[in-house]
């Protein structure tokens, strides 16, 4: 039978009836007439018709399914497009209807404000008087600045490693996404200051400079001189410091009293008297293993190297033969690295011994957070050498423990030099900024007296301004003795305790790695010194320091 209307449409009931009829007829005939070949042939033909018909039906069903699928997809796309349009429209409608800031601040100009972008880590710690620590909403002091200067400051917070990578990517691409970037004094300052990717700031505050931009927030003489020196490279200031810390001897006064131990003044006394006495006392009363004499960090990173460098400085060691510390000096004198010297090897050996003999066995994997946690939880009698880590422990710890924390000057080495480091959380202006003048004004505002006082009173007494460091308000909060230690240590620190070369961070990473290896028993101190020496030499040779 033929039905010319059979094609791509949905199978009609007539078609289905045909299908069923063909099938049943064919089966019946086959079953009844086995020997009659003509009937068999007819039955088989009908079976063939049935199969063909079924295929047609399936094909139509597939086509119909395909059509349904296409229709459904089209409908879904239309719905998504409508939702997106509605969402975007709703966002702009909401923004237009959003209530204005309730501070009552009225813009002084109708011109479009300039935007300055800054990136940093330590959200909830830095500039919490300008941005809400949790919601990141701008607060009144910032809004007032933005109104007066018609400059909007946008901050981007992230973790430290990510911030460094973003800064690196921004400089590599030249995008100028960040006008003000992180330029800390043991890492990025050397890298980007040396390659001219940061603006020298003297052009903004020197009156004779064509780019001179007076700022009511900036007072050059108020900055701690050592902090400014740390932020300078080859005689030019490239960054302004927010907070600056040096070393100190941070200890638990109650445990020192309990074990009848004196605060040491030299490294020899610390290693031969103080630490062994603490350990012996803890062993005697069965607390050793739950409490340790000292908390250190030993992870294979540049952060550990910051502390090791303090030891190198204390032992009278230097990065280069002749004590040179800048690119120009090293190249001019063909000064080779000096990491296999006795002083450096002794420094690594002493630091590793402290971690291995007098601290938890996990020390080779400890970062600053674990070091702080050990001290803060009452499991260590000393935290050494960074003062800022001890302040963190004190601020966020159990008062029954933290009330017994005390601060003393750091120890000195055999040459009389202190085991001191200095580090600033500093910020510079990117060479790719779209508006250097606005960036300068914003930078000076961010480093001004009220900002630093707020930070120093609320978090750590490590400001970068003399007027804040010496203020009675700060002394009232932290105590006269503590503040005197901070002042003295900053005064006798040496910003060039590490070399100011762009390869500094790479060498520091290696230094952290070999120190961690010595602490874990993977290599001996002389092997560590030699490995560091070989690495530094190859790196500097590759970078053209030596012909």
């Amino acid at each position, binding site marked *: 039978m*033929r039905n010319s209307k059979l094609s791509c449409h949905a199978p009609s009931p007539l078609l289905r009836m045909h299908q069923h009829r063909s099938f049943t007829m064919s089966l019946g005939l086959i079953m009844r007439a086995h020997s009659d070949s003509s009937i068999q042939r007819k039955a088989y033909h009908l079976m*063939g018709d049935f199969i063909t018909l079924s295929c*047609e039906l399936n094909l139509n069903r597939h086509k119909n399914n395909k059509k349904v699928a296409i229709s459904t997809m089209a409908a879904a796309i239309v719905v998504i497009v409508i939702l997106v349009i509605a969402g975007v429209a709703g966002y702009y409608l909401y923004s237009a209807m959003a209530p204005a800031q309730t501070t009552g601040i009225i813009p002084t100009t109708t011109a479009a404000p300039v935007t300055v972008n800054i990136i940093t880590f330590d959200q909830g710690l830095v500039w919490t008087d300008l941005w809400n620590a949790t919601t990141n909403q701008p607060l009144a002091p910032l809004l007032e600045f933005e109104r007066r200067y018609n400059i909007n400051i946008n901050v981007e917070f992230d973790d430290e490693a990510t911030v460094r990578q973003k800064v690196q990517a921004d400089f590599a691409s030249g995008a100028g996404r960040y006008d003000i970037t992180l330029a800390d004094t043991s890492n990025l300052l050397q890298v980007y200051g040396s390659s001219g990717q940061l603006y020298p700031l003297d052009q903004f505050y020197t009156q004779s400079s064509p780019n001179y931009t007076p700022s009511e927030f900036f007072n050059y003489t108020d900055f701690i001189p050592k902090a400014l020196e740390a932020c300078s490279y080859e005689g030019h200031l490239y960054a302004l410091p927010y907070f600056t810390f040096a070393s100190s001897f941070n200890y638990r006064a109650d445990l020192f009293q309990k074990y009848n131990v004196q605060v040491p003044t030299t490294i020899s006394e610390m290693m031969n008297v103080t630490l062994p006495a603490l350990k012996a006392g803890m062993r005697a009363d069965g607390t050793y293993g739950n409490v340790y004499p000292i908390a250190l960090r030993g992870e294979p990173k540049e952060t550990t190297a910051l502390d090791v460098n303090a030891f190198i400085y204390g032992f009278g060691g230097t990065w280069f033969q002749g004590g040179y510390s800048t690119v120009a000096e090293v190249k001019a004198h063909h000064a080779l690295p000096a990491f296999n010297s006795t002083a450096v090897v002794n420094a690594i050996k002493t630091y590793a011994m402290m971690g291995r003999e007098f601290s938890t066995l996990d020390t*080779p994997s400890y970062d600053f957070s674990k070091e702080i946690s050990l001290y803060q939880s009452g499991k260590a009698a000393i935290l050494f050498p960074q003062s800022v880590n001890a302040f963190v422990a004190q601020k966020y710890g159990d008062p029954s423990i933290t009330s017994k924390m005390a601060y003393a000057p750091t120890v000195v080495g055999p040459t009389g030099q202190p085991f001191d480091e200095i580090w600033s959380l500093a910020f510079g202006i990117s060479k790719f900024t779209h508006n250097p003048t606005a960036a300068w004004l914003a930078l000076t505002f961010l480093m001004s007296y009220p900002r630093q006082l707020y930070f120093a009173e609320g978090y750590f007494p490590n400001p970068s301004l003399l007027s804040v460091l010496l203020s009675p308000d700060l002394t009232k909060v932290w105590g006269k003795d503590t503040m005197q230690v901070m002042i003295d240590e900053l005064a006798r620190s040496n910003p060039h305790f590490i070399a100011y070369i762009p390869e500094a961070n790479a060498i520091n990473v290696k230094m952290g790695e070999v120190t961690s290896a010595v*602490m874990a028993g993977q290599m001996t101190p002389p092997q560590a010194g030699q490995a560091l020496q070989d690495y530094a030499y190859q790196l500097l040779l590759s*970078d053209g320091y030596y012909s």
Partner: protein
Amino acid sequence: MTNWPREEGAGRCLIFNPTYLFASHDDDFSMSRVSKSFLSYAYLWPALAVLIALTIFPTIYTIYLSLSEYKSYVLTHQFVGAKNYIDLMNQANFYNSLHVSALYVLLTVAVSIFFGFVLALALNQNLRATSIFRAIVILPFTIAPIITGFTWRYLFDSNQGLVGAFILPLLGLNFGSILGNPTNAFVGIVFADVWSKTPLMFLIILGGLQGISPTLYKAAKIDGASVISSFMHITLPLMKRALIIAVILKVIDSVNSFDQVYVMTRGGPGNATQVLAIEGYLIAFSNYNIGMAAALGVVMIVISVISISILIRYYNKT
């Protein structure tokens, strides 16, 4: 046979059929054939564009970077040929990282597949609680590697960690420090990776096991085969392809392993757990030497391609 009208073109593949294109057809159809083939290839361009943008271009650019001097503190990026590769080969840390990575890949692949197989065999039953146990087994895989790394970093702490400070001492196992000891730290990162990735192996292997017809086991049982004999002569041969797929995926994963290991140990103590990916990260973001990091990336690509090619060749043979 009754002639039913057929939909024109039904049964012909219009998307891509070279034989159709090159077969002799009426000339009247030649132009429409060309336009149809162009249209067919045109549908491939979106996927090709994504492939070029996300895979081919980055690979070529990485090779270009590896042949350039690209340091963050040097403004010019000149062509230096194989210098980055030579400098890389001159670093002792490169060979250490190669050794650590090789051992890491070997152990994580072997152990995770072994445990995945055991779990799959155990849970390839249609018992009442099987689905619940399967869900529990898969759970570690759902946790992001970085969270896994942080978790095990604190669990292994010998002063405050649940495992390092309480469970192991309770069991009388005194390893000292886990993450502070070079050997223990390596075992620790292998353990954390196996814990995290065994569920994936379990899923792949379970899928393979469920593809084996039960009638084979019944027939073997009737013929008097033991459990071990059935396993050796039925399960293993039929599981070869699934196992190779599992090995390929795990090798790729282990060679590129970074976040979990970095968070746990930073490659330490010393450089005991410094796998190639961490070495590359340090070169790029601590040493600011993008060119040398790209060279290491190219080396890793070569290593991965060679090892996976060998495995795929073996897969095609089975």
